[in-house]
């Protein structure tokens, strides 16, 4: 039985001894639990209470990797600390045996010990330093975990008092040997003092003194058993610890000064020792250095060698190395930091780094590709949508142009063009450009009528009249009369009219209108903007041929008032005997032209149709002289008027009649019947008569009939005459007839038109379903003439010479050459024109016409003088009329029965000779050439008219070129066959846009 301590514990055996005391293995008598009893060697003159406090503090420690302290007992003058008995062996035994454990196990131990150190270093109030970590102070338990034993309990006090700081050479940090030692080592190794201001250490620093004698303690590894808890402590006397403030350097200096005078019983020299958590980390690092390498690290921390690759992985070696940095500031600043480094060892391994780098590179590359792809898709999609929108706008533009609304066509075409301010804006599409070019009509150089614009009205129109000089238009719609300037299309005046669908308006002259105002007939001055005179209410008006007399009738009334046009003086009244103008069933849809209400030249005779289905001539002087020219009991519609001394009339009641009577005698002088309605208009001495598809003029001086227009397949609905110009309104569109006696139809044929007016250079048409007036302008482009030729010269093509000083007009039968002043230079008839295969105008070294016959004969005629330059016989040409037009990198092949196709000449990007595009069109392609950045294709239609297209580099149409005959030197030439060749430059996109903006601006100003 061993010694009983404090009646509680039995000592079983001595297991170790050291500077601080003897260590026994024992057991708790009652609990029969194995314990360790550590007899404290310190003198009992240390107050027992302070020892108790030590143990009390230790008893509070609870960590898996630190032995539990249970008790503190005193026995026979010796103080015993009772703590956990740790099964296992110390690591120094492992080392001594030369046993090498797997690195991963060693790392696990390291983590556990760091865990313990974190715990210790964080104990309040100042943390607890171990102070003497070494293999002997680490127990390896049977379960494979480790336990840190024998830490310097005195270093937990943190108050003035004796402290024993133990160290073991090789494991102890440089600061264990004192600050002088550190300084000398720095000097020896050529490293500068860092002072105490560097690094990030913020823990408690234990400052102690060591004696010189005790700088070289003996390692107590002698006589150890397997279960030996080794302990090595260095007995120190007169040691003090001081809590240093934040200003460590300062405190140190003051204490150094004090230290030398601290006195005590020491006769030994004292060295300043400053330990902190980093010192423990050094020792821990050194311990594992030994475990991994098998060699104890050198005492001189500056000379410790790297652990070799064979001993451990470089990553672990680096951690150990950092922990063992000679300078405390270079080590891990806390156990937590070192533990984090250890726990990040996977992450920091080079292979992990490499893998992560590869991953990041791959992610970056894939992300970049995906982003680039997404960006391209996004941009492409934006542009696709823009393109689709542009196509839609282009269609809107074409539709508006078809209806004559030029402004709207330009607006929509401009909408189809993005502003191209950023990468999301698609380039202008060919369709948009084509729409704008068509809307602006910049390449339409033929003289004739073309749409100017559409005037929008508040309501559908009933009547329209153009002023004598043709620059004003008066329109009546529900309850209002508007007058427009036809040059600017601006509204000059708006006037309220009689509430009737049959309000009326006439131009007394270019600046005065006679109209059925609310409250009475009015003569209004458009310049002065004032009424000249006002008469009685009226809905129907007429002016005498000389303009001096006006007749006005309210259709609800049976009395016609005759006025002096100038002053409104009533010159007479015509009593209709209770009769009225015919009343239609539906006011709104009746044709206001289906009546006769007219004065003769001097206003003495009134022609009028009445509700008894009669047409009458009545004296306007109120004498009640009247003659009935026509009468029927069947309801009918009428038209008529005075021409010269005659009165012409027509009637339609299912069958139609036309008649001319002498105005004075009312004797019929001519007449005819038809199953199609007649419409009669008169102007001066002339009578105009339409019937079905014919329009005739009858001159009253000779009664000669002249066919004005013949429109087979169409029906003339209405017409208007202005001198030699006639506007025809048919059931299939409108047409114009001018001095050439040709009827030229303009615009789309399916736009409904019910009536029209013509005057000066304008015409206006309307229908009773749409609140708008279509204004058509007669344009001539004489300013663009380059050649005037005899209109009777029949030719298919016109070309300009290379020098631009002569023009050749030719067909298969003959050719004529003119100089630039229009003088004929040559006229040559070609032989055997029926056998001519083809003609090509060429501009090589000189300009010439190449004529090819089917038999292979090829003749070249000079474009200067028409002389035969050469004649040769070649192979018979291909009867398919195969033609190839070379256009640099491309060529266009066309033949008689095939659609022209574009081919690539070079193999860049596209397979050589690959077909890129088909150029399908109604006409037959006769020529193709390059024109700057564009291509030009020329066609002849089935009707024989010539036209062309300007194509962009994608062979998309960007401009329609009616009557195109040639292109040379950046200029376009047009020949409509009407006696002129005209020239135009190529308009750039910016110019077109600028013109478009001008049109829109003018329209805005009109509003």
């Amino acid at each position, binding site marked *: 039985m061993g010694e009983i301590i404090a009646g509680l514990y039995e000592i079983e055996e001595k297991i170790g001894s050291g500077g601080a005391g003897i260590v026994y293995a024992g057991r708790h008598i009652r609990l029969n639990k194995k314990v360790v009893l550590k007899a404290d060697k310190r003198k009992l003159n240390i107050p027992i209470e302070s020892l108790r406090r030590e143990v009390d503090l230790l008893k509070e420690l609870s960590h898996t990797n630190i032995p539990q302290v249970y008790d503190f007992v005193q026995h026979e003058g010796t103080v015993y600390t009772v703590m956990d008995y740790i099964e296992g062996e110390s690591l120094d035994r492992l080392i001594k045996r030369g046993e090498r454990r797997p690195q*991963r196990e060693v790392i696990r131990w390291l983590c556990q010990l760091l865990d313990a150190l*974190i715990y210790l270093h964080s104990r309040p109030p100042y943390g607890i330093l171990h102070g003497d970590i070494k293999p002997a102070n680490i127990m390896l338990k049977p379960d494979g975990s480790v336990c840190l034993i024998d830490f310097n309990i005195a270093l937990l006090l943190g108050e003035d008092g004796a402290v024993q700081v133990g160290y073991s050479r090789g494991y102890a940090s440089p600061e264990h040997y004192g600050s002088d030692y550190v300084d000398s080592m720095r000097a020896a190794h050529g490293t500068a003092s860092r002072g105490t201001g560097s690094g990030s250490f913020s823990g408690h620093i234990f400052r102690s003194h060591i004696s010189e004698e005790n700088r070289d303690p003996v390692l107590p590894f002698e006589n150890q058993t397997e279960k030996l808890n080794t302990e090595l402590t260095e007995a120190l006397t007169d040691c003090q610890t001081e809590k240093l403030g934040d200003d460590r350097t300062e405190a140190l200096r003051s204490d150094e000064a004090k230290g030398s005078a601290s006195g005590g019983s020491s006769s030994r020299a004292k060295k300043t020792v400053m330990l902190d958590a980093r010192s423990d980390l050094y020792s821990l690092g050194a311990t594992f250095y030994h475990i991994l390498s098998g060699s104890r690290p050198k005492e001189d921390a500056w000379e410790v060698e790297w652990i070799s690759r064979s001993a451990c992985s470089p990553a672990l070696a680096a951690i150990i190395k950092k922990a063992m940095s000679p300078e405390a500031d270079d080590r891990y600043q806390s156990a937590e930091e070192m533990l984090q480094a250890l726990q990040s060892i996977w992450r920091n391994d080079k292979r992990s780094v490499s*893998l992560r780098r*590869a991953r990041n590179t791959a992610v970056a590359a894939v992300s970049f590709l*995906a982003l680039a792809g997404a960006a391209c*898709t996004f*941009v492409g999609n934006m542009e696709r949508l823009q393109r689709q929108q542009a196509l839609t706008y282009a269609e809107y533009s074409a539709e508006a142009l078809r209806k004559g609304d030029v402004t709207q066509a330009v607006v929509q075409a401009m909408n189809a063009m993005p502003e191209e301010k950023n990468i999301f804006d698609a380039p202008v599409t060919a369709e948009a450009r084509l729409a704008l070019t068509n809307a602006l009509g910049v390449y339409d150089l033929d003289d004739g009528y073309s749409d100017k614009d559409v005037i929008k009205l508040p309501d559908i129109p009933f009547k329209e009249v153009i002023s004598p000089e043709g620059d004003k238009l008066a329109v009546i719609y529900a309850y209002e009369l508007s007058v427009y300037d036809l040059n600017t299309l601006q509204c000059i005046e708006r006037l309220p009219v009689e509430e009737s669908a049959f309000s009326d308006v006439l131009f007394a002259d270019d600046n005065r209108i006679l109209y059925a105002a609310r409250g009475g007939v009015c003569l209004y001055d458009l310049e002065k903007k004032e009424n000249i005179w006002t008469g009685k209410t009226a809905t129907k008006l007429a002016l005498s041929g000389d303009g001096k007399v006006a007749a006005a009738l309210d259709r609800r009334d049976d009395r016609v008032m005759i006025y002096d046009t100038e002053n409104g003086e009533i010159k007479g009244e015509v009593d209709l005997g209770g009769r009225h103008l015919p009343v239609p069933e539906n006011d709104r849809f009746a044709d206001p032209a289906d009546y006769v209400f007219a004065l003769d030249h001097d206003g003495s005779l009134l022609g009028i149709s009445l509700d008894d289905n009669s047409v009458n001539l009545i004296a306007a002087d109120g004498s009640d002289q009247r003659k009935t020219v026509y009468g029927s009991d069947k309801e009918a519609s009428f038209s008529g008027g005075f021409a010269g001394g005659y009165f012409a009339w027509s009637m339609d009641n299912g069958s139609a009649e036309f008649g001319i009577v002498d105005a004075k005698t009312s004797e019929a002088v001519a007449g005819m019947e038809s199953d199609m309605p007649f419409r009669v208009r008169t102007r001066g001495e002339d009578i105009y008569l339409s019937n079905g598809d014919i329009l005739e003029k009858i001159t009253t001086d000779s009664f000669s009939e002249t066919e004005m227009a013949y429109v087979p397949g169409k029906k003339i609905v209405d017409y208007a005459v202005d001198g030699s110009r006639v506007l025809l309104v048919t059931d299939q569109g409108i047409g114009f007839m001018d001095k050439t006696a040709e009827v030229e139809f303009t615009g789309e044929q399916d736009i409904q038109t019910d009536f029209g007016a013509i005057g000066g250079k304008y015409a206006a048409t309307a229908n009773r379903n749409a609140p708008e007036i279509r204004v058509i302008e007669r344009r001539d482009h004489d300013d663009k003439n380059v050649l005037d030729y005899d209109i009777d010269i029949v030719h298919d093509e016109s070309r300009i010479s290379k020098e631009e000083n002569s023009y050749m007009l030719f067909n298969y039968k003959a050719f004529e050459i003119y100089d630039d002043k229009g003088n004929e230079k040559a006229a040559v008839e070609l032989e055997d024109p029926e056998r001519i295969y083809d003609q090509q105008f060429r501009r090589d070294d000189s300009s010439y016409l190449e004529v090819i016959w089917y038999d292979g004969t090829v003749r070249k005629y000079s474009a200067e003088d028409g002389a035969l330059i050469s004649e040769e016989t070649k192979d018979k040409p291909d009867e398919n009329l195969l033609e190839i037009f070379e256009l640099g990198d491309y060529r266009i092949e066309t033949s008689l029965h095939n659609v022209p196709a574009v081919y690539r000449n070079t193999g860049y990007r596209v397979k050589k000779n690959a077909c890129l595009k088909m150029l399908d069109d109604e006409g037959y392609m006769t020529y193709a050439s390059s024109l700057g950045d564009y291509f030009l294709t020329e066609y002849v239609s089935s009707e024989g008219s010539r036209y062309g297209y300007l194509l962009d580099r994608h062979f998309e149409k960007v401009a329609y070129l009616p009557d195109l005959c040639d292109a040379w030197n950046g200029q376009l030439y047009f020949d409509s066959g009407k006696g002129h060749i005209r020239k135009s430059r190529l308009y750039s996109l910016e110019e077109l846009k600028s013109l478009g903006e001008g049109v829109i601006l003018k329209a805005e100003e009109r509003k």
Partner: protein
Amino acid sequence: MVLFNISRVEILFYGGLALTAFALVLGMIFAIIHLSRKSRLERTLSEEYGDPARYNIQSRGEKV
């Protein structure tokens, strides 16, 4: 730009789609390769270092 008769807009749009699809496929391939390498590396590292990141640290309050 006339490239096989395809316009720039179509090249951008469809090319972008193709590029994105290619990036996704490439990403999947990289992911498979990466996961395979990572798995092998983890085995190697586990063999060498154990798994210190998974050790519960009592001083941090983790259950040991």
